[in-house]
């Protein structure tokens, strides 16, 4: 008997994305550009994060027409975002057959306390995290993939670096601890004990962890790989740049060959203007998507 929706096929799907770049797209044309550039998946959205920031108001799941259009345009996997805690948006996306759901802080949370119980969905979920406590809680709820949050739509890598470094430092700490210290650590991190135990045994997270939120250049993507990300999400960076196709290809190559600095130098030549970017100091707490719902 065939079994669908098992942890192995849900987590395994993310394993197949490793070393790759997942790109935000808002229509079929952008999705084609992303696929041709070598993206491993696309995230179908109504607006990229920097436009969500500019537009203000409540950001919701994309119009299903856009998601469908993107699904019909490409053969690579298509992801889509639902609001944190919005069980019905998630069920709608699952019913449409999207390949991965991002329960995302980029959209306005629908529930300010609870995330979706993702365990009984057939479709796999990716969730954001800023530290190991968040990462472990999301795994406990059934996330099959993680991404460090960074600060979406800013084109500023600083938060992405901070979150990935912190998660990895906290993993190293867990691995180095003795098992009888884990329960107290679980209490302090607000993390499920079983997930920490699994991390200790494996020496790593039990799911793939990409970096997201602020990747704007090929060198940014390579930096995240260097710091131990399994791959990168690029949101506004590509289609807000002067030459999206060239930019997308350069980011894909820099992610694969992240230790080949001569190549990254070549790739970075004459790319044109990257997205403008925001300094964190100019953002108020209310502007920080990464602080939404832990």
């Amino acid at each position, binding site marked *: *008997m*065939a*079994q*669908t*929706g*098992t942890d*192995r*096929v*849900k987590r*395994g*799907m993310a*394993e*197949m*994305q*490793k*070393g*790759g770049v997942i790109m935000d797209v808002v229509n079929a044309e952008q999705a084609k550009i992303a*696929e*041709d*550039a*070598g*993206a*491993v*998946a696309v995230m179908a959205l109504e607006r990229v994060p920097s436009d969500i920031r500019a537009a203000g108001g409540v950001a919701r799941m994309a119009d299903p027409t856009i998601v469908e259009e993107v699904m019909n345009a490409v*053969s*690579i*996997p298509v992801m889509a975002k639902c609001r944190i805690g919005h069980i019905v948006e998630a069920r709608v996306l*699952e019913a449409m*057959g*999207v*390949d*991965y759901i991002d329960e995302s802080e980029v959209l306005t949370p629908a529930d300010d306390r609870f995330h979706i119980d993702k365990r009984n969905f*057939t*479709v*796999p979920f990716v969730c954001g995290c800023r530290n190991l406590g968040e990462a472990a809680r999301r795994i406990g709820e059934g996330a099959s993939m993680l991404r460090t949050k960074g600060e979406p739509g800013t084109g500023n890598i600083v938060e992405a670096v901070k979150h990935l470094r912190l998660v990895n430092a906290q993993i190293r700490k867990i691995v180095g601890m003795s098992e009888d210290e884990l329960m107290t650590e679980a209490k302090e991190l607000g993390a499920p004990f079983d997930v920490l135990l699994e991390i200790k045994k494996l020496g790593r997270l039990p799911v793939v962890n990409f970096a997201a939120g602020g990747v704007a250049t090929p060198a940014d993507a390579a930096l995240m790989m260097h710091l131990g990300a399994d791959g990168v999400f690029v949101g506004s960076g590509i289609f807000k740049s002067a030459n999206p196709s060239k930019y997308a*290809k350069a980011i*894909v*190559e820099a992610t*694969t*060959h992240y230790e080949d600095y001569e190549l990254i130098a070549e790739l970075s030549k004459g790319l044109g203007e990257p997205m403008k970017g925001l300094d964190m100091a100019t953002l108020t707490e209310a502007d920080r998507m990464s602080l939404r719902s832990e």
Partner: protein
Amino acid sequence: MAVKIGVLGLQGAIPEHVKALEKSGAETRIVKRVDHLEGLDGLVLPGGESTTMRRLMDQYQLFDAIKRFAENKPVFGTCAGLILMAKQIEGQKGPHLALMDINVRRNAFGRQVASFEADLKIEGIADHFNGVFIRAPYILDVGPDVDVLSRYEDKIVAAKQGHFLTCAFHPELTDDARFHQYFVKMVEEAQNK
């Protein structure tokens, strides 16, 4: 001496293959550039996104180098690797490496929600093997020189042709290394010839 097997390391489930090969007694190396192929006895094309891998293979002349390597060295492709090895891909103009006389259908079982695990019988490898199918392809038909090793509901999901081995599922995502052991043996035999 242990055989040395490369894993194409451009994108996808790379460490899982490395682990399974090492468990099967082979030495390994991750291949990202042409010079990494030097001195290897065999090569694994892992699961991942075939379009992504193809685009990256066109860099650094890796595509032609792998084709030359495959002329006399064993190659094993899983999932996306199967698509890279096929001579014919349904609905697509040209093939990629075109190593095996097989005609394949991409994402043949459907999208991710249809991804599944199922028990398989694999000729010469196992009576029961947990096949992990993720947006998997299958083989529509094969040439006369191709041996079909496994079928799932009449669909061909594993095959062998000379020194080429392929499957539509992911043995690297299980702890069962029998498929990799079989390939390591193929590499050892090719070396002894």
